[in-house]
Structures are given as C-alpha cells and as structure tokens.
C-alpha cells in the first residue's frame, strides 16, 4: 500500500461514483418528502384536543429523537421479516428516514407556529374567522417563512446522513465507494472522492439556505446585526 494518489484510478472510478451520487440525491429527496409529511402528522398529533393522543405522540417523538438512526434502520429492515413482512432496503430506508427526520421537522413546524404572535390569533377571533380560515389565510403565510431555514437545514442533514443507508445495502454513493474500494483494495481515492462530492454539494446548499434565511429575515422586518 502506498499513499500516492493515482489520478488514472480516480478518473476510472469517477463515472461510477457520479452515477451513485444520483441515487444519494434521490434517496435524500424522497426521504425528505416523506419526512415533511410525517412531520405534519406528528405536529397534528401533538396539537389535537385529545390528551391521550397528545401524550402518546409526544413520547413517540421523544423516543425517535433520542435513539440512533443507524439502529432504527436495522430495526425496520430486520424486524419485518421476523413477522413475515419483507421490505426492500430502499423501502425500509425511506420509512426510517421519513420517521426520524419527521420528528425533527415537527419541532421546526411547532417553533414556526409559536413564532406567529398571539395577537394574530386574537385578531382572527375578534373578526370571527373560522379556525381553518385563520390557519389558511393568517397563520400559515406567516409561519412558513419562519420554518424555511430549519426545513432547509434538515434537507442538508438528511443528505449527509444518507451514507448510513449503505449499511443495509442501499446502493448510494458511499456504498459504491466501499464496493469499488473493496474490489481494487484501494480506499484512498474512493473515500476521498466521496468526501469531495459531499463538500461540493452540501456547501452551496448550506450557503443558499443562509442566504434564504437572511432574505426571509429582511422580508419579515427582522434584520440581523
């Protein structure tokens, strides 16, 4: 083994890694879409008038938030077959990511809803708006801009957690790198290139989120610094 960087080897494996990157982006995208919806369900569960559902959902969210994604992945992937439900790696990965990040997103939504001043609610009550109308026309338009930065951060977060999916055999970028590295018994180039690909994708994403956050703050009249 030598530490020399081999450019020809790097060029040789680059197409393979780029194709796998598409899988990674797809996994992050689908997982995020599920998480956005699941987050809303968790939020609804925490805001209903039924006390028992409130407490139950709260505990479930707490539990999912404080246990590692990796074991949750294993749990979903391996437990199904024990009861005769066989889920493919992709399906169980999407379920797990959706549930795990859904809990985080529900917190983001909650923060955003609480960020809308209470006087807005009182004004709607005074104007005799229905609850649905209040949400649709008054609360959501004001809560959404507050939620955008948090939602964006978790999109990048999901993207950075996709390598975990390789442990149950989802063929994404990290999986491809491990396979290529194992085949040629050279891990230097594949793993370094994975790092570079992640950097080139996530830094622009994080920067654009920061820009978005700033413009949202400006539009809301809250200028930082």
């Amino acid at each position: 083994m030598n530490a020399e960087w081999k450019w020809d080897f790097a060029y040789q494996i680059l197409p393979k890694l780029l194709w796998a990157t598409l899988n990674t982006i797809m996994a992050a995208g689908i997982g995020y879409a599920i998480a956005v919806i699941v987050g809303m369900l968790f939020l609804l569960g925490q805001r209903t008038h039924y006390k028992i559902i409130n407490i139950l959902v709260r505990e479930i969210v707490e539990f999912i938030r404080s246990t590692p994604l990796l074991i949750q992945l294993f749990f979903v992937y391996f437990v199904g077959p024990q009861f005769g439900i066989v889920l493919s790696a992709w399906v169980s990965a999407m379920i797990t990511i959706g549930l795990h990040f859904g809990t985080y997103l529900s917190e983001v939504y909650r923060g955003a809803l609480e960020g809308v001043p209470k006087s807005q609610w009182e004004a709607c009550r005074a104007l005799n708006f229905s609850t649905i109308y209040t949400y649709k026309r008054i609360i959501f338009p004001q809560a959404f801009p507050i939620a955008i930065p948090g939602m964006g951060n978790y999109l990048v977060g999901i993207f950075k957690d996709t390598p975990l999916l390789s442990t149950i055999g989802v063929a994404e970028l990290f999986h491809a790198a491990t396979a290529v590295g194992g085949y040629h018994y050279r891990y230097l180039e594949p793993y370094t290139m994975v790092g570079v690909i992640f950097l080139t994708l996530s830094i622009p994403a994080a920067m654009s989120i920061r820009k978005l956050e700033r413009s949202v703050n400006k539009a809301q009249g809250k200028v930082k610094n």
Partner: protein
Amino acid sequence: MSYFSFLAEHGSTLLLGTVTTVKVLICATILYVIISIIFGLMRVSNNSAIQGVATIYIEFFRGTSLMVQLFWVYYVLPFFGISLEAFTSGVVAIGMNFGAYGAEIVRGGIIAVPKGQWEGAYALNFSPAKRMRRIILPQIFPIILPPAANLTVELLKATALVALVTVVDLTFEAKQINSITWLSAQCFGTALIIYYIISRFFLVPFLRWLEVLAARKVGKERL
C-alpha cells in the same frame, strides 16, 4: 423464546457494549468541547488568517458526512502511515466533527455577550486575553449550554456509527446477536431502549443540571 430468557442470555453482552458506548460518549464529548472552544475562539479572532483556518475547518467538517470522515480516518489514514485503533479513530472522527458544530455555538455565545461587558473591559484597560478569560468566557456558558446540550444528545446518537469501524459497542453487539439468533425485534429493540434510557435519564438530566449551575454562577436565575 420469551423476551426474559432473551435478556437472561444476552443481557450481559448488551451491557458490556453499553459500557463501551458510554466510554466513546465521554471521550468524544471531552474532545469536542476542547475543539469547539479552540475553534470558536479562532473564529472570532481579528487576525484574518486564524479566522480563515477556523472557517475552513468548520466548513469542511460540517460539509462532509460524519460517516465519510469516520471511514476516512479508519481506512485511509493508514495509507499515510497513521494507524489508529478503531476506538481512537471513532473518538477522533466524532470529536472533530462535533467540534466543528460546537465551534459555531461558541462563536454565537461570544457574540451574544452584551456589548457593555466588552466596553467595560476596555474601560478597565484589560488585555485582550484577560478580557476574554475573565469577562467574556465565564458569561457564555448560560448562553451556549442549551444548544450544546442538544448537540451532545446528537453525539450520543452518533456514537452508534463507531460500530461500523469494528468498535465493539452497543450497536455492534446488537448486530452480532442479531446475526446469531435472528431475533431482530428483541435485540435491536433492547438496544433502542438502552440508548433512550441513557439519553433520557442520564445525559439530559446531567446537562440540565449543568445549565442550572452555569446560570447560577453568573447570577442569572433560569427562566
């Protein structure tokens, strides 16, 4: 096989793994606290070279995934003649990754110290080092501890990853037992519950206690 006989047979193995997980947690937490203070201070430095180094470090470690960094430390560093044990590389990778996140929290805390405190230190002709050490740093703890507590819970969850570089921790043991017995619900379920107990009944109360302590130290009652 009932759940209790499962526990009787494999409980001790899982507990041994838990001890390793706690060890990783403690070591990585110490490392990440040190790194975040150093790089947080560098980030607010007036020297643009020092600030640039800190920014590059933070962006690099936040931009690439922890798992990639972990595998890089464990599988690629030996190419450069640095062979770390699995446990050490796990602690180093987690510590450096979370240090980058922590540094941003420390920077936020330093910026959030009221301006009057800085001006007071100027007025009393404190040297920059003394100002930082005696006036600013003691006051950042009540500000940074709540976000740092969240980060530490994240760190506990991230310790599960070290199982992938062959550290025999709770996750590794659960996987091992699963591959022998195929009682997936029992072993992964138990592992999930153990992580939950560590976080809910040990880590979080400890961090809350630290928050109260820090608030009291600077004479601020907690809200």
